């Protein structure tokens, strides 16, 4: 390794060293809580909050509020931001309830939009479930034995898990056995999620260590 290239003697290298300092300061928490970590933690929060003002201010307020009013002359938009500012009354003890006018508008929007989501997201899945061929016949020329067995497995698991989640009636006798099977099947899903979660978290750490080895120590990987 060329020491001249490694040391922070150029602007690019200074940047890389700063990135490494940030990484190692955060990792110092693994040893114990310390002032260096606290310093960088607060810096991180400040930077993240400060950064958001650029996209929020320019991509949203400038694009959707300032330009329509001052460039296109659409004056009616002038009432929107003052109305949205009602949100900031949330910190007022006296007028706190006023923020609920805006929250109500946002909640109403989400609720109204959900009907489309229900139809496009869940009904399609219901259709996909109900249209699985469960036996081989001339009506299902593409269905093979393995596919049919897999479909039965799919339906059995789905029904068992749904039974496990249904608490509208007492789970006794056969229902209890089906619910127990449902709980076991549920563990398969949770196991898959756990396995994938481990993979994701490891990848994030690997990415960071890759940065230290590749960008900082300049090791070709």
């Amino acid at each position: 390794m060329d020491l001249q290239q490694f040391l922070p003697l150029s602007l690019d290298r200074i940047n890389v060293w700063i990135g490494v300092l940030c990484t190692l300061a955060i990792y110092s928490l693994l040893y114990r809580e310390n002032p260096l970590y606290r310093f960088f933690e607060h810096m991180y929060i400040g930077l993240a909050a400060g950064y958001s003002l650029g996209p929020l201010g320019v991509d949203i307020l400038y694009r959707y509020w300032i330009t329509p009013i001052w460039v296109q002359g659409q004056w009616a938009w002038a009432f929107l931001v003052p109305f949205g500012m009602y949100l900031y009354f949330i910190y007022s003890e006296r007028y706190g309830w006023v923020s609920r006018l805006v929250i109500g508008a946002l909640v109403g929007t989400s609720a109204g939009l959900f009907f489309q989501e229900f139809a496009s997201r869940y009904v399609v899945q219901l259709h996909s479930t109900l249209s699985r061929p469960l036996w081989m016949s001339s009506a299902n020329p593409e269905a093979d034995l393995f596919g049919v067995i897999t479909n039965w497995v799919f339906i059995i698991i789905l029904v068992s898990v749904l039974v496990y989640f249904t608490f509208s009636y007492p789970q006794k006798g056969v229902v209890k056995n089906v619910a127990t099977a449902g709980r076991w099947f549920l563990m398969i899903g949770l196991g898959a999620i756990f396995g994938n979660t481990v993979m994701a978290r490891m990848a994030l750490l690997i990415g960071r260590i890759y940065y230290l080895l590749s960008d900082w120590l300049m090791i070709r990987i």
Partner: protein
Amino acid sequence: MQTRGPSIWERMLSIDRRILYLLLFANIVLFLLLPIRMRAAVSPPVQKFYDEIEKLQPGDLVMISSNWSASTLAENQPQLEAVIRHLMRKKAKFTLISVEAQSRDISYRLASRLTPEGGYEYGRDWAHFGFVTNLIVSIKGMVNNLPDTIKKDVRGTPVSELPLLKGITSLRQYKMIIDVTPSATVPFWISYAPKETKILYCPTSVMAAEAYTFLDSGQIKGMITGAKGAQEYEQLLGIVGLGTRFVNAISFSHVLIILFIFLGNLALFMNRRQMRQEG
């Protein structure tokens, strides 16, 4: 009375967490530096993803929804890089949009860095629509009237004036939507995007297991699971990217974790047995 010292099992159970951290760190360093490249068996969701992009014709328009921040850099960056490279090979045009503030700059910079490789020019072959705070209403707006919804790109150009979007009035005219995300944004695309537009998904691994129901119903046509999926995709493309560089370390960090779950259980079992024997 002489008291016995802690047994090996007790010591294993009370091991200092920092030793565990160091072991994990050393394991990753070791396997990142390992020069061996193992070939992956390409999983069906990744193969389907690849096949769908292969079907694109030159000039087809693709929407990339990039919603990740630096917190999932190692998972989503390899995916986005591989996907953009593939789109450029197919001469497909693309636009980016972000519902995550940081992703606006990260994806814009990443695409600005990669696109010259394919001779892509901003405005003619690709563009970035910037940041939106509410993806659902953006999608609904874009379906109805795209230029009026997006108004301007990140460079301040009215989108109706971009050569790339000449004659494009609705999201319906897009051939494909690719969601690169660590958050639950793909249900929004599934729910509100036009049914005729295919949806491909690049989640972080955490999100992947939950998406198999969408793959099964055909609501998404293909999926690249995290950095591991990106490695499979890079293998299909015949390139060495970040996924390929990470995958050895991913494999062996899994081995380490499984080994330690086993050791933890063994230590607990043996310790209990010993305590029972000692009354």
